[in-house]
């Protein structure tokens, strides 16, 4: 059954996946089993995306299938079933910028690689990032930006973390089409990554204390 669920998600059988997960839960399956299937499916989809077998349509559809399947599980059960994540990450596209496709792929890959990700969406103000970091106490803050104006939004976000006394509590990574290491220095972030796998590598390094 679990394999069938993985198969359904990774082959874009969205409705079948949701029905199957509901059926499994109804028949007494553990929340953990379902969530494991989700993780496995995510890894497969992420891998196929990296190998250029899957493109945006597959990422959009499997991403939504995964969300719908996960939503079938009660929050308490979900909490109990997921082990300790490697690290907790808050991600968002910075103020003035509404590009979200790249950011969602990064969030997808991080989740598939056992990080807990909280996605704040797009056009996220410095204030909101600071508030979230203060409340949720993530280990890592991941900022996406695609416009030239995002440099300054990122810089303001990092500065606001400093002003709130939170800068030492989180590592900050940035990414998005026009970013590079020069921009990382400009905004005062700790790392820059060119793609989603880089985001995973950076987060792994940091969670291993590197």
């Amino acid at each position, binding site marked *: 059954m679990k394999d069938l669920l993985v198969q359904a998600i990774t082959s*874009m059988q*969205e409705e079948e996946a949701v029905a199957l997960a509901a059926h499994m839960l109804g028949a007494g399956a553990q929340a953990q089993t379902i969530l494991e299937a989700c993780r496995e499916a995510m890894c497969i989809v992420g891998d196929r995306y990296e190998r*250029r*077998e*899957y*493109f*945006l*349509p*597959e*990422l*959009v*559809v499997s991403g*939504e299938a995964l969300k719908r399947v996960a939503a079938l599980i009660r929050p308490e059960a979900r909490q109990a079933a997921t082990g300790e994540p490697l690290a907790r990450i808050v991600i968002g596209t910075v103020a*003035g910028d*509404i590009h979200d*496709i790249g950011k969602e792929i990064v969030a997808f890959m991080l989740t598939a690689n056992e990080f807990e990700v909280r996605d704040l969406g797009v056009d996220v103000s410095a204030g909101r990032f600071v508030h979230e970091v203060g409340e949720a106490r993530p280990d890592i803050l991941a900022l996406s930006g695609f416009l*030239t*104006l995002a440099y300054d939004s990122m810089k303001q976000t990092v500065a606001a973390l400093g002003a709130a006394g939170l800068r030492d509590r989180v590592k900050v990574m940035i990414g998005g089409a*026009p970013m590079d290491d020069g921009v990382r220095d400009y905004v005062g972030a700790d790392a820059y990554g060119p793609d989603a796998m880089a985001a995973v590598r950076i987060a792994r390094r940091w969670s291993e204390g590197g």
Partner: protein
Amino acid sequence: MSETPEVLYRERQQRILDAVALRKPDRVPIVSPFQLFPYTYAGVPFREAMYDYARAREACHKFAGDFQPDADFGPVLAYPGKPLETLGLKWFRWAGHGLPGHAVYQFVEGEYMTADEYDEFLYDPSHFLASKWLPRSFGALAAFSDFPAMRRMMWFGWTGLFASLARPEMRQALAAALQAGEELSEWFASLARYAAEIKAKGFPQAYAGFSWTPFDLVGDTLRGTRGIMGDVIRRPEKLLAAVEKATPIAIEYGLAAAGADLPLCWIWPHKGSAGFLSDRQYARFYWPFLREVIEALVARGVIPVIYFEGDETPRLKHLAEVPPGKVWFHFATMDMARAKEVLGGIACISGNLPSHLLLTGTPEDVRRCCRSLIDTCGRDGGYIMDTSVMVDEARPENVRAMFDFTREYGVY
């Protein structure tokens, strides 16, 4: 002795027509749709350019006079602020409306047609656009959600239709539309005036029409990126039907260019670049319809300018299917030697001078890059100098280097 504007006009026009026809012009033409730069260069904040049409014309005259492009865009890319305001356009943020005064406008994507509305669109696109897309796009046109379905005007159907136009909310919406129409007429008059002035100075107008790829017409304006990407898998047949429906509409848009001195129709493709769709998806949903638009426009004497802003490397083999000597492909990210290899003898190519170089580089960097572009793909015609994407911020000395060097080094 300097040439008369008439002679310059014909020379410039011919230079571009030759490049597109893959004949050797006298030199490499330069045509570049600079977006924000002409205004900052002239010291006109973009907000002012969007509201004060005379100021916008002034800035564009200065740009054309100082840099001497082979075809000129003029103020068409500074959309008119007043009618956008009158109508309450929702899918745009612009200077003074969500953005600072010097900023170039931003498109705000959304789902302006939901997944379950495909049939409605397919049945009567005009009515769908009037009663759903207009009210969702413009705050002042909310009452258009009850816009009468014109297809039902036959026999005495028109009585009910016209009566519904007189309802108070509809009157208000129509009044806003009329006011915007008047404001738009002013803008169009300004564009026409500029075109005449610039022609008298010897510059052909760089655009005669604008259109879309059919897939993007559905994706950009109706479904949004997430929506259309999901539809590729969830409802491929409906999506195909909608893209098919959009194809003759895209052709209609483009035919506006027929008969112009430079019959250039600009098309900005978005969602078919590398990374968006697999090759199979591209070959099924994207390319056949774009090719149909290209072929139909070419058949009517229009020159399609396909201005790619992403990476089209994996699509080159498809692009090679267009009628030879009739089409102009612009590339942002591309190995131009490879493009020349695949498209040589088939289509004119342009672009690839990294836009950020004009901001962060030196004139020497710019010259080096122009030289390499002319050497790799301009040697026997078929290349037009342009930046990779539309230029907003740039150092004037770098822009000057781009134009001067190309004029000098690009002589055949």
